[in-house]
């Protein structure tokens, strides 16, 4: 074997740049053509897009189930659907929105955007990334197929025991729900680990923590939250499956188990979950506000601290979901205080965004409109959340439509509006084409007004005593008109989404071609072409400020010297992003898919027999061995120099 010296290896640099470099990198970083390439890809952008599209499909499905429910609730004592159907629907709506849409789509955006924003070639652990998508897809498909087969879960997205236990939820419905949790757990944890590693070790040289874009901060905090909160619900659902399948007594009060154990475990995940959805959205808002206000975000350190504080406080508030369960009353005060405290960082962020606009020169294009809608809507949700932090008030409004209104204001206002803005904002980066502005504005106004019409009345329904999760209601309660109004609003929202989707599809084909940086935005992701090449950047950029493209308008400094004949990344130090080592990045592989299929078989069949865990472990092990089998002898040079 010939030992090559480091100098003989092809690297980017002065000798190799321009089209020749692009061609070389494209060969190294490209996927196989056709279906095989689609299956084996480890490109964060392809997987990210896949995630986003799948998440949007689940959003549509969940939205349709909401529409169906609103139809049932449009009139009192409606017998359009059976209670069983309704219960399955609201369970599917909540479950899909939370587990299959909101968390995955936020992670998906991060999968796509984070490597671009921090100037690296690929996400870390790219095969794990591919694997996570297949797991997520399998879980989502499983639960929706089950729903079509009338084995959809019907115990609510929160699946309180003992209602979800073996006695009161006969059949396999809840097992499928609990196993879906396992699928999405695996997927979400995998992505979280990738993001943490990517963000901490793969930032472009010079991108110190203090220069990190706010969305990346959001993704980092979110990823840590996922890592700390998801095991709690994974444990809860595993215990539930054990109760249901092999007759353990974790949640059986009679045998000194505790149904409240479920609530603690579930909400220890469930409340951070809200911030897992919200924090990336604040990242979108920051980026959009910054780009369209033409001014760096006001009080960047305060924004970062707010993110981190929110992430920490989020773990101290779960009991506010349990104020009516009769836990020691004085202890509730702590959770009231923590819940109120969470609104402080949110208030700070709201101020900073508006201040950014106030101090900048805002151009009210569609993405910024969504930011305005976000502020107008989310603040209402936040303030009604402040009300519910109070134990006495919560005891009245808990589990009423007031809460339904509250969390739709928080989640739709706080996450979906920014997401739609972000989608419009980064659409040119994803596709190379701009979204249509006129259609975008139509969709925006419909969605904004439709949302208010659908959900604002629910505050009053709640105060007028209408509980949640009822498939029908009596006629003389004064709830009729408001419910009808809510249903009308929900249809307006649905129509708006239709317009939005049509716009996306239309723009994908015919939209105006966008350049590398159509919005003249300051982030690194705009430094490369739209859509970006497989290798993201020909040379790794070097960063010296928080807004590199504004500060280095004419010439963005780069760093060279990475090998181009092999997939190689630059790792930098955690705090200061000083170049550290070069590291290989995994090649495309079908093994993640095979491993996901084996795991899927294990998970699904373990709904039916505990032996599946034992037997199913063998194919999983085989797939993992294949995945990690050393493919080639070590390269001619040590990776670490």
């Amino acid at each position: 074997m010939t030992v090559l010296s480091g100098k003989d290896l092809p690297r980017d640099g002065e000798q190799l740049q321009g089209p020749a470099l692009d061609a070389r990198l494209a060969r190294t970083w490209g996927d196989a053509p056709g279906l095989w390439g689609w299956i084996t890809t480890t490109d964060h952008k392809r997987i990210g897009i896949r995630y986003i599209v799948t998440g949007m499909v689940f959003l549509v499905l969940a939205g349709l189930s909401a529409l169906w429910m609103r139809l049932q609730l449009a009139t009192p004592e409606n017998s359009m659907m059976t209670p069983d159907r309704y219960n399955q629907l609201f369970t599917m709506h909540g479950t899909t929105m939370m587990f299959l849409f909101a968390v995955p789509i936020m992670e998906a955006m991060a999968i796509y955007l984070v490597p671009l924003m921090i100037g690296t070639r690929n996400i870390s652990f790219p095969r794990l990334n591919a694997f996570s998508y297949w797991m997520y897809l399998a879980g989502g498909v499983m639960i929706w197929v089950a729903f079509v087969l009338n084995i959809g879960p019907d115990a609510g997205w929160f699946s309180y025991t003992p209602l979800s236990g073996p006695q009161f939820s006969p059949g396999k419905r809840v097992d499928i729900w609990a196993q879906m949790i396992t699928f999405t757990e695996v997927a979400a944890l995998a992505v979280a680990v990738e993001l943490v590693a990517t963000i901490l070790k793969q930032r472009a040289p010079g991108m110190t923590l203090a220069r990190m874009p706010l969305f990346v901060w959001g993704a980092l905090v979110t990823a840590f939250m996922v890592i700390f909160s998801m095991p709690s619900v994974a444990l809860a659902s595993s215990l539930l499956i054990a109760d249901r399948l092999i007759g353990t007594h974790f949640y059986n009060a009679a045998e000194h188990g505790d149904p409240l154990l479920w609530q603690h475990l579930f909400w220890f995940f469930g409340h951070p979950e809200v911030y897992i959805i919200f924090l990336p959205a604040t990242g979108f808002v920051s980026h959009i506000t910054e780009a369209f206000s033409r001014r760096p975000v006001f009080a960047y350190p305060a924004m970062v601290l707010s993110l981190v504080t929110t992430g920490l406080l989020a773990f101290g508030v779960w009991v506010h979901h349990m104020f009516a369960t009769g836990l020691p009353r004085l202890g509730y005060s702590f959770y009231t205080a923590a819940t109120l405290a969470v609104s402080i960082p949110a208030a700070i962020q709201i101020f900073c965004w508006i201040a950014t606009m106030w101090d900048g020169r805002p151009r009210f294009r569609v993405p910024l409109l969504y930011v305005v809608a976000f502020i107008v809507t989310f603040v209402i949700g936040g303030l009604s959340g402040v009300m519910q932090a109070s134990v006495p008030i919560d005891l009245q409004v808990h589990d009423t439509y007031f809460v339904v209104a509250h969390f739709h204001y928080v989640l739709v206002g706080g996450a979906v509006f920014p997401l739609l803005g972000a989608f419009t904002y980064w659409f040119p980066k994803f596709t190379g084409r701009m979204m249509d502005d006129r259609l975008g504005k139509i969709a925006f106004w419909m969605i904004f007004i439709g949302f208010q019409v659908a959900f604002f009345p629910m505050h009053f329904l709640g105060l007028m005593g209408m509980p949640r999760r009822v498939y029908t209601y009596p006629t003389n309660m004064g709830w009729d008109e408001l419910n009808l109004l809510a249903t009308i609003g929900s249809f307006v929202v649905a129509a708006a989404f239709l317009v939005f989707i049509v716009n996306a599809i239309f723009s994908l084909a015919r939209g105006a071609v966008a350049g590398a940086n159509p919005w003249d935005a300051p982030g690194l992701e705009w430094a490369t072409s739209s859509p970006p090449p497989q290798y993201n950047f020909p040379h790794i950029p070097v960063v010296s400020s928080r807004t590199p493209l504004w500060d280095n308008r004419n010439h963005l400094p780069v760093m060279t010297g990475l090998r181009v004949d092999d997939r190689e990344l630059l790792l930098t130090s955690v705090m200061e992003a000083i170049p550290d080592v070069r590291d290989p990045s995994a090649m495309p592989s079908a093994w993640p898919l095979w491993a996901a299929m084996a795991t899927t078989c294990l998970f699904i069949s373990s709904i039916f027999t505990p032996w599946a865990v034992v037997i199913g472990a063998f194919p999983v092990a085989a797939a993992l061995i294949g995945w990690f089998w050393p493919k080639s002898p070590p390269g001619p040079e040590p990776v670490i120099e």
Partner: protein
Amino acid sequence: MRSRPSVRSRATFLAAAACILLPLPASQIHAAANGARPAPAATAPEDGQWTMPSKDYASTRYSGLDQINRQNVARLKLTLSWDTGSRKGQEAPPLVVGSTMYLTMPFPNNIIAIDLAAKPRPAVKWVFRPNPRPMSQGVACCDVVNRGAVYANGRLFFNTLDGQVIALDAASGKAVWRTQVGNIMKGETITMSPLVAEGKVIVGDSGGEFGVRGWLMALDAASGKVAWKAFHTGPDKDVLIGPDFHPYYAADRGKDLGVHSWPADAWKIGGGTAWGWVSYDPQLKMIFYGTGNPGPWNPEQRPGDNKWTTGVFARDIATGRARWFYQSTPHDLYDHDDINEQILLDMPVRGQMRQVLVRPARNGYLYVIDRKSGQVYSADPYGYINSASGVDLRTGRLIPVPSKAPQEGRVVRNIGPTASGAKDWNPGAFSPRTGLIYLPHENLCMDEGVMEANYISGTPYLGADAKMYAGPGGNRGFLTAWDPVRRKAAWKIREDLPLWSPALATGGDVVFYGTMDGWFKAIDALTGKLLWRAKLDSGIIGQPITYRGPDGRQYVALVSGVGGWAGAIVSGPLDPGDPSAALGFVNAVRDLPKRTQAGGRLYVFALPR
């Protein structure tokens, strides 16, 4: 007064006493070292017969026969063994009157008369088949047992499972009268042995697990007509409570407590049956008996003291009117039927001779109660108890341990004693020679979960699941020799299985009892030393007796045949895969099917000629 025993038996006794250096005064053999003796009026001279299951009105289960004694019992040999054909639990004793033995069978409650004098060997004289309704098997809580017939004045009196009282002509085996007293459609069965005294047949019902309204009644022994009937729940007039009712404790005084200590209407289905033992004091003309558990088992459904269940009544035998009542377990939490035997003794209590009744109750306390007043002199635990911390002798009230109280929706673990009690129905024997009461009992604990029970007439009314298992020490049974005067156990014998057979004490200072895996044992009445044992084909829950045969020899007889609540796992047979089967008893005796089998065989033992 009791006649003096024969010279020979006294000689034997003296020899025995000398052997173990016990300074018993030779002149006063009835009163043992501790001064306790059976109520004189309630015992009769030893005639070598066995005419009622308890042997005498004082319920001593003591026979003065002393041919078989501590020295020679080891040579005991089988002289007769005869398969009755029954495979259900045999809780009844053989009766021996003259030269005839009468066997009482579990359902279908056949009575078999055996001529012991027939040559060349004893032969069946007649069989009486009452043909009770088969449906009654479905409402018999704990196997289809019967606890025996009673012989009096040429007649045999017994009860059938489907609620009939039948008088037979003992010589011919022909029915003299039959009276239907229980309604099985409501769940009333009868398993008890009647008590016949003063021309009355005293009968009570079973069915506390079916929401019946318990009662005790007296039938005219001659005609079978109901003389009186006293309910154990409801208004005072139904309970036969009148001006002459003077309970000792304040808690038992008041108008219509049988209504006011229950939720509205609950007393109508409140249980309080009387399926156990009745003792009779001919001097006071009073009967003493206990009442069964309130229904349902789930205590949350019946707040209040639930009068007059789980207590002991003293009634005038002629009119049935209550004289006093003492509730040993107010608001029963664990199915602690108070139906166990009351042994009528005259004994010193705090230095004074008192006429007392001694009752080892299901709740684990052995009560010494004044026969006339109903005052509790003492209540001492004779088995393991963690569900109560004692009995307040000032108020007479049991002090329950709150953490062991069953609560809907939460299983309570490790309750002792179990639903079957520290001792169930199987009575102990009292020997006036040793002054000790020989108590065969259990050492079990249980987990219990209660839930709201639904009342459907003729179906169980329980609302409880239980799982029983061995108590502290790991053995499931004890034979305790209890000294009622010194208020402590003289000694205990550990038995692996729960003891479900009564004890028999004899003038030869031998105590007999059987185990559920079929060992019939004879022990030394003074020390508890095992002297002899024999393995029978089936487990023993029956009542051993002894009698003088036509040939003048002393015989010991019993019928094997495991079953009853404790042995239902074998006689059912039940499935040990369900620990709650047989109301939880199956879990305590899972090994029983491997150690014995169903059976029903008469065994008679005697010394070799």
